[in-house]
């Protein structure tokens, strides 16, 4: 590590030609709730190819940054941007939230994963929990455009954490809001209305559930007795996102699958959620430390700014 560097042929190596890749510039930034942000990022190549259900991997700093997956929440191929909606849960998402309009993100890779299979099937129930509402949005949009009747169930712990209510209301044929504390909509978990809807005649043709793993697990359990096909979008830890590392693997129907290339959507009735949840915690101790560190640094920066 401490060996003297060989004289590089061109000074300032790693200055790759970005001539044709646009700079991943942040075009807008909106705070949707306490800890949820939306950003539009200039990424014309990704905007051109992406379909609902696909995601990107971004990295804030190419030398020491982590690569994190985020769903493409929206995109405009003409204008050449994609939108991401993210919750600040750890170091990278915090650093991202500190970026402002005009800043750039060093790496943005995508669109990754299989797009959602969207076709006209009749009635579709889309269930979003917490930040899961963001990745659900393009799917709701697609399902609606394909001519389906779309019922949206949105859940959050409390009213202030609900996001994208307006957008969903504009799209959904029926919108059900649930909060754990009853501060908005029904005081219930999303599984409650989901079961009721599955009990209706005719049954919905399919359910798409995106949210915390525990929510997806119980949504799948809720629909299982009704035999309603249930898609879930898995959010495992990833590195490359191209099928190279196997870090994102999950057990589906007894087989090992790579979420980044075989997914991210799978048949919820076959996913081994318990194993997936354990795998998500693999680095918990280190992540908590980094998160704490991040808050300390942030506080120090703010203090510094106040002094200056």
């Amino acid at each position, binding site marked *: 590590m401490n060996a003297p560097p060989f004289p590089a042929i061109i000074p300032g190596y*790693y200055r790759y030609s970005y001539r044709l890749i646009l700079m991943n510039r942040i075009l807008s930034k909106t705070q949707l709730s306490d800890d949820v942000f939306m950003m539009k990022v200039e990424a014309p190549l990704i905007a051109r190819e992406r379909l609902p259900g696909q995601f990107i991997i971004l990295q804030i700093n190419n030398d020491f940054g982590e690569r994190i997956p985020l769903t493409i929440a929206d995109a405009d191929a003409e204008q050449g941007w994609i939108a991401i909606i993210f919750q600040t849960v750890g170091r990278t998402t915090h650093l991202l939230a500190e970026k402002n309009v005009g800043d750039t993100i060093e*790496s943005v890779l995508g669109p990754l994963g299989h797009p959602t299979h969207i076709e006209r099937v009749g009635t579709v129930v889309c269930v979003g929990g917490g930040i899961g509402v963001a990745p659900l949005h393009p799917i709701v949009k697609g399902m609606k455009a394909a001519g389906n009747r779309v019922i949206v169930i949105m859940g959050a712990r409390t009213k202030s954490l609900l996001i994208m209510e307006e957008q969903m209301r504009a799209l959904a044929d029926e919108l059900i809001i649930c909060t754990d504390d009853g501060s908005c909509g029904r005081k219930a978990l999303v599984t409650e209305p989901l079961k009721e809807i599955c009990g209706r005649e005719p049954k919905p043709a399919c359910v798409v559930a995106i949210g915390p793993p525990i929510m997806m697990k119980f949504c799948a359990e809720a629909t299982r007795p009704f035999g309603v096909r249930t898609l879930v979008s898995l959010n495992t830890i990833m590195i490359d996102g191209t*099928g190279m590392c196997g870090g994102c*693997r999950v057990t589906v129907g007894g087989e090992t699958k790579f979420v980044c290339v075989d997914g991210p959507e799978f048949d919820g009735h076959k996913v081994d959620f318990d*194993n997936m949840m354990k*795998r998500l915690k693999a680095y918990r101790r280190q992540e908590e430390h980094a998160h704490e560190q991040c808050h300390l640094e942030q506080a120090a920066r703010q203090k510094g700014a106040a002094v200056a």
Partner: protein
Amino acid sequence: MSHVTRETLAAAAKRDLEAILQRGKPLTPKERLAIVPQEMPTQDPQVRRRTMSEVALGYTAEQSRLESLRCLQCRNAPCVEGCPVRIDIPAFVKAAGEGDIQAAIGIIKRNSLLPSVCGRVCPQETQCQENCTVGKALKDTAKAVAVGRIERFVADWEREQGKALPPSVKPETGRKVAVIGTGPASITVAADVRREGHQVVMFEAFHKPGGVMVYGIPEFRLPKRIVEAEISALQAMGVEVRTNFVIGRTRKLRDLLDKDGFDAAFVGTGAGLPKFMGIEGENLVGVFSANEYLTRVNLMKAHDFERADTPIFRSRVVAVLGGGNVAMDAARTAVRLGAEAVHIVYRRTEKEMPARIEEVGHAKEEGVIFHLLENAKRIVGDEQGLVTGMECLRYELGEPDASGRRRPVEVKGSEFIMPVDTVIVAIGNDSNPLIPRTTGGLQVTKWGNIIVDDTGKTSIDRIYAGGDIVLGAATVILAMGEGRRAAASINALLKG
């Protein structure tokens, strides 16, 4: 084996070389055979267990000359036969023996574009050094002329002296070639095609170019700055490198040709799909593919606990499954990350291990424990899903099979539990299916390798392929050789 310091080796070489030069007479073959084979100076194993910096320090100038003088300049040069790209070994070794390093590197570069890399990572003992006459005469391949080490010395010398100038480029032809991937196969194609004056754009899925040389092979074996210098050279030639661009997703392969104006494409996407064993417990927390483990450290710098945002599992006792270079790299990386004990579990015997002999030796010196004729049966964990142990089976060598090899057969009832908290699976890689899946009409074998004809062309016109995506997990030098062949075909195509 006690560790001999670089200074000691250097002093001995200096003395021996001076003695030879003072005589002023050409050496007889017998005298050449009597020269002490030059040992590669290395970092002290106790020190290097805690650092990522390169283990093999490279010959000194005197060692390089002395080692070169051991070469008998065989007429039939069996060494050349063993080198996949047919470097004129006697000629470059002769120049190196005369101290004319510039001439030596010039000869190597006629055939190889990446001598600094190949000198370090080629499995020389099964290639150029396998049939070396000196090795045969001394009845030990390990005593063959150390062609790779001399090659490394002259290539490093050239770069360190700032003499590694990018090759000249012919006038622009206006033709455009897409090169997918940035591993050794792709680097070779990019250079050879660009030299003819065609425009070249390389596409890389990762945020840094270099392929396995950057994300897989660790710094302690192949310093990143060497690969960086090769990429810089390409850029100096005018090759454009686009990172964060995954073909098949960001753009389809066919679209490059049909819509984006490329006249030809080369696919060098490697063998990046980790194999797992398919045993119970493989998805527990603490089980990694070697690709994941090595990528976290090499590409994402997770060993730099202070600065890197990417975490790495802090292991105490590690078992690595496999016996190839990848397994050695994973095991030695785990040592450096502070594991208390690192075990390599391999189903066959040491003789069958596909890893380079030098690396097996280095791993042993660094305290890696080898379990031969053993294999994992299942991985066990606790209620939180964390690995607590691995159940292994013992094997013994059975009757020779048709090929004369004695196959390992399991010893019934020999199960035992090895207590470990980390299991790294390094049993090989298959080809990544992304491009075949998204490119209609691209023919692949049943293992997913792209099929090419003897010009390197795939089943689709104007699309060529080479390296691990064609050969299955192979070597750097073979990937380079494939790249050369495809580049020649592409250049011929664009000429007509």
